[in-house]
């Protein structure tokens, strides 16, 4: 006899809406100003650079370099402990903030020259079993 209700299928959702999970490899998208090219993550009303309000959805590249970082100790999630927060400048000039993955939480582990590449990981699960997928960056050559 079939169950009265089929089990709700487990789905993966992005932690933020500028991360796209389908459509090939996971990637970031921005809202690019048609007037001046300034690119933003998240919903926009108008462009902070030129005032234009015509935006195009732009697929962002998945590679960049670290411009600044810190190793956060106080206030770090208990589950994961100290983590490296980084400002990454993608190769297309768009900036994004994320954790550095696969590096020790130590200032000496961070370098500004080696390219980093986007990786995804599961950051949490809700009561229906849905998974929130987040992103970070790992140095090229690392498996994270």
């Amino acid at each position: 006899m079939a169950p009265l209700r089929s089990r709700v299928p487990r789905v993966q959702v992005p932690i933020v809406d500028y991360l796209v999970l389908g459509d090939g490899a996971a990637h970031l998208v921005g809202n690019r100003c048609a007037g001046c090219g300034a690119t933003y993550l998240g919903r926009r009303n108008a462009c902070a650079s030129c005032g234009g309000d015509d935006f195009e959805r732009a697929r962002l590249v998945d590679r960049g370099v670290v411009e600044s970082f810190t190793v956060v100790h106080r206030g770090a999630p208990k589950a994961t402990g100290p983590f490296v927060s980084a400002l990454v400048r993608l190769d297309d000039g768009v900036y994004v903030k994320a954790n550095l993955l696969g590096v020790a939480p130590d200032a000496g582990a961070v370098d500004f020259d080696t390219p980093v590449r986007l990786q995804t990981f599961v950051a949490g699960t809700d009561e229906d079993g849905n998974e929130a997928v987040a992103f970070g960056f790992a140095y090229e050559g690392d498996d994270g």
Partner: protein
Amino acid sequence: MSDALWIIGASMTPFRRHLDRDVTDLAVDASLSALRDAGMTMQDMQVMAVGSQFEPYTFGQQIQKQIGQTGIPLYNVHNACATGATAVRSVLMEIRAGEADVGLAVGVEQMSAGSAPYRAQRPPERKVFEPQGRDGHVLPTEGVLGTGHMWGVFAQTGTDYARQHDGVGFEQFAKVAEKNHAHSTLNPLAQYQRPYSLDEIMSAEMMAYPNTLPMCCPTGDGAAAVVVVSEARLRTLDPDVRRRAVKISAAVMTTDPYTPSGDVHPDVNTLTRMAADQAYEKAGVGPQDLDLVELHDCFASAELVHYDNLRLCEPGGAGAFIDRRGPWRDGDIPVNVSGGLISKGHPIGATGVANIYEVVTHLRGEAGDRQIADAKVGLTHVIGLVSVCAIHILERAAS
């Protein structure tokens, strides 16, 4: 200059945990002290501005109810860490517009346990993922997509500077805190008044690299106030008041101009550089003319980059500047001789008035043990995220 503005009264309460007093007590204390210092009363005031980042609604009116309800215009101001400076500016602009010729600006904050904004705030438990906000987040992103905590943000500002300039590392940032904690030993109003050795600072608990705990400002309670008059009004006042009056040579406020990274990581440099350049031009002075600077050292890493932003050192030379003790009280340009936010304390709304109090007190020659000898010109700087910057350049009355 006929439209110059002058400070004739200034005060601040001690910065610390005032668990036996409420936020109104602190604001009243600073207000009445500044009025007494100016030889005036609330009945003389024609405009008032009250700055507090966290007090709700018509907090300024609550102060008036305790010290004088005279029907004057009142501005309630909040503008992050530039709140106090914005209150001062509100009074300046009212006077400059010709609507008043004397006014009172107060900044206050109570951040000790028990005050509303510091009660535990927990994000609501979300049982099922549902997109929230402009980025459609389904989970809190702090710690998952980098950090937005203040100590982390300013830490990244520091490592960005270190990446771009030689001779800047953990030790240079730590030396900033060593200096400010040494300076506050001379300031009876400071929250901390004990020296910390460089070794003690560098081996303390790491908050967010490169800032350890004694490299971060504490939370605390306090208030500060100033009384400002027009030049025309000043001429009518007692010679004793005029002798102690301090001229406001420049009052500048800026907000973030667009930068490509500013949306994801606050840029505290560009708007500070803009404000500094405007202030120096308006006042007709340069960094080399400054006898003291009170700048916004919410974290040691912030102070270091502001040496460069305020042109106190050679471009890119902030590391060398602290290494040669340039910003120490006996150095080239004394910075944060009060102890700064790191050691004097940072009750948010009070800070942008308290730094004016500090410079005014030196320009009057009344700073006691911490007096910078023969101080004639000083600069105050605050920055709040995200983002507003205010700079005032103050000058001693010509004798």
